[in-house]
């Protein structure tokens, strides 16, 4: 929420270098925060039970890498986006699947997208895939139906985009004006431009004001 992008639009050249990496101060604060959370209810007061601390992350997150904003006190318990899905990652680890011998002739890398997580398992025996799918299907059906269909006026399905590179507004205006000047300066066109002005030339007249007239005079 209150994140600053430091340099802003980068007007000053030198200002930015300072905050290059996470300072040791920030890292230390992260450590302290974690320590205080882990020691909730200990000798330290002013923390316990205040709901300040987000639920401990399931996996080890580097200190300070991700913390919900502090104003999100009400968030406790809401962090997991899909509490009702089965955690395939855990299921895989708990089971015997990872112990498949590397020499297994029919083992491949398996990538699982599930419940908002991605797991990549090397040497996954193909014989176990079916079992895994059954497990996921059994648990997952309910979760997938949460979303209610909304009809959106979207583009045609599977349509791959063909987008031209956009141009900065300021540059676009400049180039249009320049085109106008070149047109205005070209011999034989100065007169005709007044009789049959294109939409663009009109715009340019407006943009350039005095400039265009002067340029014309000079050429003639």
């Amino acid at each position, binding site marked *: 929420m209150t994140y600053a992008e430091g340099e802003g639009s980068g007007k000053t050249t030198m200002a930015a270098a300072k905050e290059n990496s996470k300072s040791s101060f920030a890292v230390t604060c992260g450590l302290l925060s974690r320590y205080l959370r882990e020691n909730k209810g200990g000798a330290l007061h002013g923390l316990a039970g205040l709901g300040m601390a987000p639920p401990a992350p399931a996996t080890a997150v580097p200190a300070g890498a991700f913390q919900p904003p502090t104003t999100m006190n009400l968030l406790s318990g809401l962090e997991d986006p899909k509490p009702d899905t089965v955690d395939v990652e855990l299921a895989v680890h708990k089971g015997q699947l990872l112990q498949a011998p590397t020499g297994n002739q029919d083992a491949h890398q398996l990538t699982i997208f599930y419940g908002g997580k991605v797991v990549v398992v090397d040497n996954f025996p193909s014989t176990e895939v079916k079992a895994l799918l059954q497990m996921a299907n059994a648990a997952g059906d309910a979760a997938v139906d949460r979303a209610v269909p909304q009809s959106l006026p979207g583009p045609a*399905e599977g349509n791959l985009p063909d987008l031209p590179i956009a141009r900065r507004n300021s540059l676009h205006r400049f180039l249009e004006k320049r085109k106008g000047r070149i047109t205005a300066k070209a011999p034989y066109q100065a007169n005709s431009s007044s009789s049959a002005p294109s939409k663009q030339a009109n715009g340019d007249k407006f943009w350039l004001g005095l400039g265009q007239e002067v340029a014309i005079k000079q050429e003639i």
Partner: protein
Amino acid sequence: MGGEVPSPRRLTRALSSSDVPDEALHLVLAHVDAPRDREAASLVCRRWHRIDALTRKHVTVGFCYAARPARLLARFPTLESLAIKGKPRAAMYGLIPDDWGAYAAPWVAALAAPLDCLKALKLRRMAVSDDDVAVLVRARGHMLQELRLDKCSGFSTDALRLVARSCRSLRTLFLEECSITDKGGEWLHELATNNSVLVTLNFYMTELKVAPADLELLAKNCKSLLSLKMSECDLSDLVGFFKAANALEDFAGGAFYEVGELTKYEKVKFPPRVCFLGLTYMGTNEMPVIFPFSASLKKLDLQYTFLTTEDHCQLISKCPNLFVLEVRNVIGDRGLQVVGDTCKKLRRLRIERGDDEPGLEEEQGVSQLGLTAVAVGCRDLEYIAAYVSDITNGALESIGTFCQNLYDFRLVLLDRQKQVTDLPLDNGVRALLRSCTKLRRFAFYLRPGGLSDTGLEYIGQYSGNIQYMLLGNVGESDLGLIRFAIGCTNLRKLELRSCCFSERALSLAVLQMPSLRYIWVQGYKASATGLELLHMARPFWNIEFTPPSPESMLRMAVDREPCVDTQAQILAYRSLAGQRSDCPDWVTPLHPAA
């Protein structure tokens, strides 16, 4: 802040809450300025959070819909400076219609509540009305020292008159690239008569017409005026202003209306301390006005000039002390070679895209040759943004090897040239990211085939401290995006354009990036319903879908030319403010049924 990170045990001894009195913590935190340090401190415990809030002087709100104004301002009662960003960056490229939102009104209304210390306000890409400015002036006018309206729209010179009349302590008035209704130049006259402390005035890239006499008056009354960036105005009319503005260091704008007319501009003499310069419509014949002081120039903006490649070479060879250089790609590889040989102190280099039509620009733009020359020659570069016609892995690697101070690197590969030497750029980008560990912002916009899934995975893997990324035409499949996302631990803001990813993959990718708080996407494999986007739904996460505009669909059908807003857009962001209530009817907020 330096030094080693102490172990948690030592930390406890030093900082356990009972040992350090509040007053001491106040004093210490007063010396912590870096926003990320502040953020970390506020997360330590409730007491630190409170003391941080009481001592925070500056806040940047990265996206105006991410927080409730009243709540934010109540949290930081001693705020001195506030910056708020509005519309997506795409607005600067004509991709976001004017009535999209990002209204300043709710923020300005909250500022009217007692906020005793606020003296600087910066709004970027927001819709600001005359009424908003009036409310602001009423509440903060007497205190306001800095008002920056950056690429904003919706107000008129009436608002500026009010500011000029009421904000007598204003040091900075910044209006660059704002779209302002011009009701006459009185605002500048009032500013010149009422203000004596102005340091920076910027109405560059606006269409405002002002009287040169008012500028001269301003210079006479504001002895400390250091920077003037203005709209177009013939330079021969500014002779009096330049004579009066003795302290001026920074000038941009003006215009050479009579290209080729030598004598008219001979009497233009820039003030003695000018070292930042950008002159609109400067051509070959006018260029010599810079020569007498070119060696003292630190910043040169040639984006809006008519110079040829040869002119760039000549001029830049006379500017050995440049820190900042902004040009169009007409500079060519030849010009960049001169930059590499001459500008040893260069920190920022921007190479914008010129005209694509052949014949107007005299050379083929910029390629790996020019970029390599710059990388080898300018070792202090911190910022490179370039539109290139060709690029190789080797050139990216050179940049990585020689420019290790880069904190911001942006590369766009133009789509006009048929043949590109060396795609995909997987290994080059890996080498660059591995070496440039200070990178905080990164943009890589290629063409289909420019980066494989493996390359995309490299970007994630070596994303290090990068907080902002723009990627275009990268990757080959959904898997590439997911593997990229897994690596991005610190990424906060991501923009994707023209990539082959499905909605489902986009959703999964969002869930993989723990720090991500903002994503904008245009050009993806859209489904008929957009349903799969809901996989990224979660508390405090808003998803907004914008279908292509009907007008541009029509235009495309008629002209057969792809145009910029014919593709749907997705914007999703973390927010503590709930769904926004001011969506135009062509934006659809997505959320799962309750």
